């Protein structure tokens, strides 16, 4: 596809509309976002360091990624990576239990952490003069985390409350768990990062030690700092605080069980608690982050599902009104994951109707390539996401770290933009044909659980 760049002129709305109605190929393309400016260094102990200066506000953001997530959890220990993330706040040689966040908030900073399938991320934003403090804090716990049975037990209860709050007690909260449990047989993506109550209960101090010694080592970590600092000065401090952590004696294990290909189409109906309306989910396995097909799949998802003019919304919600809400999304992460389209069934309509409507939208993507203007729309939306996803130091750090950790190539933090812009309508059709097949389709129908009446009983007293 040839992309010419023209500036929008006043009244472009009318022009675009006419073009769209006539099916004429439009010529405008996304504005090229500003590139990130950074340097990357690896310390002798294996710690990767990425530095990106931005002096526009006197603040600094630190993001420390450990390349370990829920997919590294052994059988019977689901949820452990996330539980461990919590334990990292329970004190180290120079920092008392729960003191980490107190030290940060007492200087006006914000600290947090999260765990995904692939990584565990610790982050702090502070006024820029406190960069030494957050470097010191992260180095202290990377080197000398301290945990005993009491702190493990108490934090386990907090994580169980988190599971209840975020998933079990939330309408539709169990959706991810239901999808992944049914879509995977072997790969640990079968379970979500929060894990099961039983496995959380089983976690022991020995597990903590083993996990810490295996994964919380410098060569498995990437430290990204973005904001108001001088790189030379920051690097000296980083070498001082992190350089004294010894290199691990054993390599970090990287073997993850592989998922075999599906053996045919499946249809499954389940009932769930806290499930207000019937839902239909159409699922296909797709590829991994960094695979050439990942880019057209992303564009395909946008054509199907970004904005009110996208195909799934327009057809199911606006025109046919068979769904209250509907969307499709690709999850492209380190190992091959899923595309899934979800629709909440409009009261009065049936799951069968909605399933047929969803599958029909996916089939259309295979039948003929999307119109040029749909592809261009998706690219423009991608460019918007790209730009608004790089506004803050935290966002920039996340993109740099993701590129370095998941792609093992920090340059992809910028280089992917051009790959996206080069995706063609034929690429989109090709990946639809490759991945939206009958023999790898899973259709889940999730119904409100019947055994408990929705409203039973009068007021107690």
């Amino acid at each position: 596809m040839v992309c010419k760049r023209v500036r929008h002129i006043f009244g472009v709305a009318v022009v675009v509309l006419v073009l769209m109605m006539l099916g004429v190929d439009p010529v405008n393309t996304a504005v090229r976002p500003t590139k990130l400016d950074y340097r990357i260094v690896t310390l002798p102990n294996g710690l990767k360091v990425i530095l990106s200066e931005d002096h526009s506000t006197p603040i600094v953001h630190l993001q420390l990624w450990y390349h370990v997530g829920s997919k590294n959890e052994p059988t019977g220990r689901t949820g452990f990576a996330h539980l461990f993330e919590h334990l990292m706040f329970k004190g180290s040689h120079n920092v008392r239990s729960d003191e980490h966040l107190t030290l940060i908030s007492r200087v006006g900073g914000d600290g947090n952490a999260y765990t995904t399938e692939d990584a565990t991320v610790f982050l702090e934003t502070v006024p820029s003069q406190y960069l030494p403090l957050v470097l010191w804090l992260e180095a202290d716990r990377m080197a000398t985390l301290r945990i005993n049975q009491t702190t493990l037990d108490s934090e386990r209860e907090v994580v169980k409350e988190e599971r209840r709050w975020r998933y079990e007690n939330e309408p539709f909260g169990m959706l991810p768990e239901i999808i992944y449990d049914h879509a995977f047989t072997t790969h640990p993506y079968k379970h979500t990062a929060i894990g099961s109550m039983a496995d959380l209960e089983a976690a022991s101090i020995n597990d903590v030690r083993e996990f810490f010694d295996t994964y919380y080592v410098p060569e498995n970590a990437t430290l990204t700092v973005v904001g108001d600092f001088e790189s030379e000065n920051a690097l000296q401090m980083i070498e001082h605080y992190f350089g004294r952590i010894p290199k691990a004696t054993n390599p970090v294990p990287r073997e993850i069980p592989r998922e075999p290909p599906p053996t045919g189409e499946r249809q499954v109906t389940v009932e769930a608690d806290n499930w207000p309306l019937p839902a239909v989910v159409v699922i296909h396995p797709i590829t991994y982050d960094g695979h050439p097909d990942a880019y057209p799949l992303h564009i395909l998802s946008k054509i199907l599902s970004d904005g009110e003019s996208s195909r799934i919304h327009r057809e199911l919600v606006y025109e046919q009104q068979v769904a209250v809400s509907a969307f499709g999304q690709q999850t492209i992460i380190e190992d091959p994951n899923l595309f899934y389209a979800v629709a909440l069934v409009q009261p009065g309509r049936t799951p069968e109707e909605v399933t047929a409507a969803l599958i029909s939208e996916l089939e259309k993507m295979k039948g003929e390539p999307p119109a040029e203007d749909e592809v261009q729309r998706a690219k423009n939306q991608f460019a918007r996401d790209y730009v608004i996803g790089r506004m803050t130091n935290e966002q920039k750090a996340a993109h740099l770290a993701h590129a370095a950790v998941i792609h093992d190539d920090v340059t992809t933090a910028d280089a992917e933009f051009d790959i996206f812009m080069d995706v063609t309508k034929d690429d989109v059709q090709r990946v639809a044909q490759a991945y939206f097949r009958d023999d790898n389709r899973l259709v889940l129908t999730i119904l409100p659980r019947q055994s408990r009446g929705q409203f039973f009983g009068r007021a107690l007293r």
Partner: protein
Amino acid sequence: MRQLACRFGFVGIGVISGVCFLLTTAPVFAQRSSASASDVEIEWPSEAPPPPLIEQSVVFPEYQIRTLDNGLQVVFVGHYEQPIVNARLLVRAGASSDSRDKPGVAALAARLLNQGTATRTAQEIAGIVDYVGGALDVGAGPDLSFVNTIMMSDSFSLALDMLSDVVRSPAFSPEEIERQRQQVLSGLQVSYDDPAYLASIVFNRLIYGFHPYGMPHNGTPDSVSRITRDDLVSFHRDHYMPNNAMLAIVGDVTVEEAFLGAERAFGSWLPGSLPDGVDDAVPLPTRRLVVIDKPGSVQTAVRVGHLALPRAHEDFLAFDLAVKILGGEGGNRLGSVLRTQRSLTYAASADMVGRQIAGDFMASTDTRSVATAEALRLTVDEISRLRRERPQDAELRGAQAYLAGNFPITLETPNAIASQVLEAIMFGLDLEELETYRERINAVTVDDIERVSRDYVQPESLSIVLVGDASTFVDDLGRVGFQNVEVLSRSELDLAEADLRRKSSSPVR
């Protein structure tokens, strides 16, 4: 699914101070002896945290304000790192301008803005906005209605044209009204299964009574069903006028482009006579404990608080610090007790909301069902202690250090800067105060905290809402000192009734 939930979670500008945070910050009360988590022994120095570097000066970034001849106030913040521009228009009328018997009009009117205008259909608007990779969001909060658009900066003219079109000339076509009404009703059906939503609507109803602040701003299934096209057209005619609105332009355009663009898109918008001010009668705090029974819940949503201060009140800042000591960053007694010491919850916090004519403070936590009474007792005890005991100097310093130190972080994005300016204009605050925020924070004394806690915290008049499986905890409430408990099932809940209980004779609605 989150998309659906979010659609009903309209938030205007920074009217609500603070959002829930993932990990509560808590002071340390007990030091436990811990063992190394490693089998590997390493040499590591014992040392105190390093001192800070030299502090950089913090100034409130540059912004411009102009008022067009028709009264439209325009705020501009330039930002040139990325080729993107954001324009939002705020109308100073939201759910608090709804009539008492028909909440949801302001919100539904806002939802219809981008669903067709005099010259464009809903699908045309979506097509135009999506095509250039833009986004156009609409909604209403308690005190304002908004349209927010973001586009790449080469679409700046288009952004203003779309904004102007949807704000000034919405069609309110009957077909689109029905579509949106259906969406709202379906959304409410889902929301009525959401403990956090149920807790928030009942809490607001207890705090604000029959004042419009006391009703859900999206309306109730009953009121939304009764809204007519005339209601929407009238709301728009009476409130959407340039002398009742603010426009913020933020991003990669020059100041000249911004103000010329504003003039071109909105200069011909005719001013009108402003509607009467909103109802300012809010009830006095009275003690009430309502349980919404949701059988099968694994957790109970606990919400405790009462009426506090409107945003422009002179004690707002001091009371905000007091609430931070109770349950916010830099302090958070609730987090220490409920999470750190007792592992009863993932998060416990307290927050304040300052609105145009009133405000409230609310302590909030979610706990496993069997621990409900214990968590409630501890929460109420901490609220009482805030009034009873003079806080420690260190506690105030912690809260002050957080707010003052956090100030530059609140200025990181141009939108955040514009939000602070808009909030000041919206609530009639002195714009000079944006510059002096840190000085004003640091000027608050322990005496001030003691005074505002005494004046504004009334432990005997707390409104309490519990949403969860009543059978698992309702008998425990009396044992920890809570009497006069009202228990309702969700199907009985009717916010329009004084006792919140649907009249048995009235039809199910």
